[in-house]
């Protein structure tokens, strides 16, 4: 056996490259694609079209329970879907009751409504009259169940401590009075909402989920527990395209594409190296590296 195969040579380098190169490459590719996007075309999935169709069933004045079941980090992934969906809500003139499922939710309204300012100004969409933020109300399943049964016994003030009396929320007695639940989720109280609102009161629920939870929510979609699903940033970008309002989703699609390509290249390099190295020298057995 020659020296190269003993040491593993190029194959060993390919199989055991430092994972920090992967991080560095991803950083560089993502950053560059965001700074200099080339606008690669994207296709629109049937799932996103169904989500848009579901939102189109809403009429002016309908009551939507917008549940922000996400931490600030999760919002970074769901941002395109959150913004695009709320643009639709504002344009349609639906009444929004916004709740958080995580204490970090309190950081979200200023961030989100700053980006929706053009829409809230154009449609004269104001807090208190058209939307009410009831704040962090879902610490656990019991809280969701209680709120679903008797809304006003559990929510008396909004997130700023002002009474919700006299707002459109007076019409709500229990969760069954909502026309739709629009959930943005990293997996916090979503199951509880399905259990205690969808199952109990039959309120249709649309979900914008982070990528990790999409397979689980696809099962819920098939089972009819949720009526539509918007998948991760990609879904948000598709929705932006459908409503003709480019935003952070479409801007980040190049980074998405090139990020995936880079990972595929790293996987191919690793696999070629692994097979080449093990076949040539049997080093895998000797070194114990698998």
């Amino acid at each position, binding site marked *: 056996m020659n020296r190269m195969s003993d040491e593993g040579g190029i194959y060993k380098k390919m199989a055991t490259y430092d994972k*920090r190169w992967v*991080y560095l490459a*991803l*950083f560089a590719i*993502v*950053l560059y694609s*965001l*700074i200099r996007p080339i606008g690669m075309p994207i296709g629109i999935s049937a799932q996103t079209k169904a989500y848009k169709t579901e939102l189109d069933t809403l009429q002016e004045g309908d009551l939507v329970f917008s549940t922000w079941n996400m931490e600030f*980090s*999760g*919002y*970074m*992934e*769901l*941002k*395109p879907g959150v913004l695009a969906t709320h643009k639709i809500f504002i344009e349609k003139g639906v009444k929004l009751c916004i709740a958080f499922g995580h*204490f*970090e939710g*309190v950081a979200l309204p200023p961030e989100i409504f700053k980006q929706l300012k053009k829409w809230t100004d154009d449609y004269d969409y104001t807090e208190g009259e058209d939307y009410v933020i009831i*704040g*962090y*109300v879902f*610490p*656990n*399943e*019991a*809280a969701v169940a209680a709120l679903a049964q008797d809304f006003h*016994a*559990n*929510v*008396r*003030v909004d997130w700023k401590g002002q009474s919700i009396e006299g707002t459109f929320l007076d019409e709500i007695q229990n969760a069954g009075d909502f026309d739709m639940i629009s959930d943005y989720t990293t997996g916090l109280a979503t*199951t509880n909402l*399905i*259990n*205690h609102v969808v*199952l*109990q009161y039959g309120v249709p629920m649309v979900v914008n989920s*982070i*990528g*990790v*939870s*999409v*397979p689980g929510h696809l*099962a819920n979609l*098939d*089972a*009819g*527990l949720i009526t539509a699903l918007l998948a*991760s*940033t*990609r879904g948000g970008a598709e929705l932006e395209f459908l409503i003709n309002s480019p935003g*952070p989703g479409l*801007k*980040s699609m190049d*980074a*998405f594409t090139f*990020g*995936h390509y880079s*990972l595929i290249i790293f996987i191919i390099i690793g696999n070629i190296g692994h097979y080449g190295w093990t076949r040539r020298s049997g080093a895998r057995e000797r070194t114990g590296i698998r």
Partner: protein
Amino acid sequence: MNEFLSFAAVVVGIFISFAMYTTLYGRPNPLRSWAEFSYLGAGTGVSVVIGLTYIWNTAVLGIQAGDWILIFSIILGLMMLFRVHPTYGYISRLPLAFTVGTGLALSLRTQIFTSFIRQINATIVKLWTNVPLDFLYRVTIAVSVLTILTFFLYTMELSGPLFWTSRVGEYLMYIGFGAIFAQTFMGRLGLFIGYMESLTTPTWKTPYTVGSALICLIAAILFERTGLGEKLSAG
């Protein structure tokens, strides 16, 4: 003044983010420790304030409105604090038992429908449909369910047709796991790209983002090379 504070918050936020990312370098360094403990401290502070606000809004305001039964929830909550007391720690078991019992009862009542009955119902569907793609989809579900179930037959020897169906089931599971891994990577990348997008929009942030990334990378390398990283970082 306010504008300067907003600007400073953004710039510090960008820098602290990249300081946190230096954890990917795989060696301890004080920048990462600083970022990590700042985040933990701030996060804990915010969670305490929000938690207390929640108690005020739901329990205290409820009691003021005449919902006296909520007094018991406050008492149970206070009993939970005995958890840290070395002698009277056992008192916290009562509210814990109450919480676990309530949670389980609420959950079991509905989980049977969402996780079992409705999922099984969704699996048992008519195979034939006029839409070819739907037909393919339903056949795939039926074949996958049946073959994967045979893989989990542990009480009998898998031989003959059962051996082959279990093998098919095994490979179908691999495909499923692969799809879940891909979805997970897409999700994590989406999270990262979403954050990077917010660090490069509006464009005036870009120089600070690139600068912070370079400074933190160079600092991480220097801390490793000089051996100071281990010495100066906590944990």
